[in-house]
């Protein structure tokens, strides 16, 4: 008996094409979103540049993020802190005018959070700052960024795909520095 699959393929061809088109479409859509709408570098309400502040003018990180050395969270400076300098500095730039409009209306600036950890991770800035870990170790070369971005170069200087803040980042560093209880689950997950 002679069996051929050709007639069956003929029937299936439109369906197969449909599946291929859908799959290609899904990948394309996904890729377009990942490329053109990145979550790791959102546009902020004020185009604050870390490059100008921390890079060009070498303002220390802890000058603004004062909480980092004594609190779990590094803290965002109050609007008054920005205004403290910008009453005098660069007052004519449009972004500084925008800042002053927030200040005059007594409104906080709704910064968008970029660096985030899941709620089940108990990370504390205090310990790491007091242990003289450079901010850039996790946050990447912030002093070169005009817009804050989750840096894929944060880990070991090598490029990584996706978000670099996985548990491996914590563990490798804790292992390397032989942190006491550094790889104990309850050190971070409590």
């Amino acid at each position, binding site marked *: 008996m002679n069996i051929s699959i050709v007639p069956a393929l003929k029937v299936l061809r439109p369906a197969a094409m449909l599946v291929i088109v*859908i799959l290609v479409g*899904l990948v394309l859509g996904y890729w377009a979103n990942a490329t053109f709408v990145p979550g790791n570098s959102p546009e902020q309400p004020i185009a604050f540049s870390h490059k100008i502040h921390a890079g060009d003018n070498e303002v220390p990180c802890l000058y603004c993020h004062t909480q980092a050395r004594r*609190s779990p969270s590094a803290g*965002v400076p109050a609007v*008054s802190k920005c205004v403290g300098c910008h009453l005098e500095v660069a007052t004519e730039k449009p972004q500084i005018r925008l800042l002053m409009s927030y200040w005059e209306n007594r409104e906080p600036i709704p910064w*968008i959070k970029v660096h*985030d950890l899941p709620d089940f991770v108990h990370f504390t800035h205090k310990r790491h700052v007091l242990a003289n870990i450079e901010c850039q170790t996790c946050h990447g070369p912030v002093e070169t960024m005009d817009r804050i971005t989750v840096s894929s170069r944060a880990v070991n200087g090598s490029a990584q795909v996706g978000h670099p803040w996985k548990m491996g980042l914590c563990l490798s560093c804790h292992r390397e520095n032989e942190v006491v209880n550094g790889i104990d689950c309850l050190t971070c997950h409590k």
Partner: protein
Amino acid sequence: MPNIDRREFLKLVGAGGVSVGAGFMLREANKDPREYLIPHVLAPEDFSSGLDTFYNSVCSMCPAGCGISVRTREGRAKKIEGNPAHPVSQGRLCTLGQAGLQALYNPDRLTAPMRRTGEGESASFEEITWEQGLKQVGDRLDLLRAARRGNRVAFLTQGVRGHLAQLFESFMRQLGSPRLLHYDFDHPHTLYAANQQFFGESRLPYYDLANTRLLLSFGADYLNNWISPVHHSLGFGESRQGRADVRGRFVQIEPRMSISGAAADEWIPAKPGTEGILALGLAHHIVAEGNYSGADLGAWTNALADYTPDAVAEQTGVPVNTITRLADSFVDTTPSLAIGGGAAGNHSNGVDTLVAVNALNYLVGNIGQEGGLVLNPEPAGPAVQQHRASYSAMVELAEAARQGEIDILIISGTNPVFTLPPAAEFAEALAQIPLVVSLSSFLDETTALADVILPSHTYLESWGDDFPEPGVGFSVGAVSQPVVSPLYNTRGTGDIILDLARRMGSSSVMPWQNMEEFLKYGWRRIYQRGDSQTLAQGFDAFWTSVLKAGAWGETTNGSTAFTLNPDVIAGIGVAPPEFSGSEEDYPFILHPYLSPNFHDGRGANLPWMQELPDPMTSVVYGSWVEVNPVTAEEMGLSEGDLVDIQSPHGQLRVPVFVYPAIMPNVIAIPIGQGHGEYGRYAKGRGVNPIEILSPLLEPITGNLASSATRVNLTPTGGRVKLVKTGGVSRDLGRDIVQHTSLGVEVSSAADNSIPITEVTT
């Protein structure tokens, strides 16, 4: 290239377009939700993001006045605990105090001033500005004051102490109105009156539970709701386990086993209202056995002549040998202490009962003794007159309103429409008052009938102070400070009153801009009592240290010497209790008790309190009536059966809970549920037993004899399932509660009449 017709092509284009969109959304949905970092505009000095800041303050969830320590983070209150430095709470706090956060964050809080619009059924509230609300009230106050008709203003508040009480008083003095009433359902009027009679001062003494070796409690549920439960619990623990060689013994005398009864070594059910007679029976035995040898022995012998153990056993239902045994051990154990209150004080003979309890302490020399009853010094707070309003004072107010004698009624923090029996006709009286102003934080039953609502801050947002009553044997005070910024467009009660005072032209007498300023003014006087070191540092340092510590104290004790006025002895005697309703028609005595969760109903809008199982029955959310197993069996009732409970003044439908530790002719319903308003968590849950109470009074104080209503029970045939966490109360052969005999034969059988056994169904 395959051959594609136009139709096929359009199909593919459509599918492709949709799938690109789907892919895009798939990625979008996988992203973390966008979070914001909202900075301060101006950073407060004491603020560190991510770090806790603790503020010491005073709890206002019940009148005990515990010191609290509130953990805040990023300007939000997160947790309330007891303040270890405060002598009343000593680092502990009850469940209601812990749930204070839910008063602050309650979704049903009043967020802005409101005014009633429309009449009757179509009435509703519209939001107004503070200026509108204060002007409306202030202008009318000013008119009345100018016309010298200020006595047409009445001010009804919950029991307040300290400078807020003084503020209310001077406010009403400016109006020339005597109608300032402090009303709380559970205020121990009879205890104050009994102390006035016996000690000559209308104050509560300090009950030194911690150092006592034998405590007789006549109806006082001291571990649950009586006066200062957190402090009593501390004393209870100290007495039981805090001393190496002594374990304090507790005997609880009450018709229905309360939490304190469950914690006691012995629970003695005396017939309701006969607790005082029992106390005098003990006193008789003490005197008759020659265990009292004071100069006034003759007077005591005469006064107690009628209270022979046999006669008392007959009246109280407590066996003779129990009476004599208790009396003997009360004498033999030093120090010992008798306390009385709660349901025992809420009978027609309430004052006499509590005088009898004081007499018992006097006869064995407990007064002024460590481990006994320590007289408190004069409170350090501002001197204010007594404005305690009993039931009859509230009825008088309602009557005055009906006569058209009241033009303005200001209500602050109390909810009389819920906590007064309908016989007082308080809600009807409110309708007769042209302007009812409520300062409540919540839309409770009373506020719902108000014309203008000027909502107050919760206690966690406002300034105040407290001088706990009873003190702890020495002077204690504490300042209540705001621990968070106000959440809504509300104002502090004191600030509202000061604003109204300005509007009626009293700013020369009451010049303070706000409560904080007034408090500082008042605390200057307390600062001046300080030693030279305190004075040298200046007032600001003193103020800061009081706020930081959350407590202020002085180690001057009250007087220890006490001489009894001989006239008191002749007046000692407890009449049999009166009940409303005949025994034939109403065979049961209703024992309404304050719920451990809701107090007098004020905690019912806190979901934590609603979902907390009742400690004795484990029932959650609803109401129930506790019925003795024997009674239940006779009537064919079992758990969950709906019964109608009828008193001469009303009727309730409520499910049965078979409760072994209650006298067969007594039924008990917890107070606190059955709200018709008061927010989503309180509304429409359970029943309010106050609704069927008869307006029977204690004649000396005018206190409502709330434990003296007779009721009958009618099964309806209906049935519900009680929500409770407890399973079967029986052992079922599992040997969970293992027991062995003491090796001592306990005297005659049925020593205390009611065996605690479960019913077999």
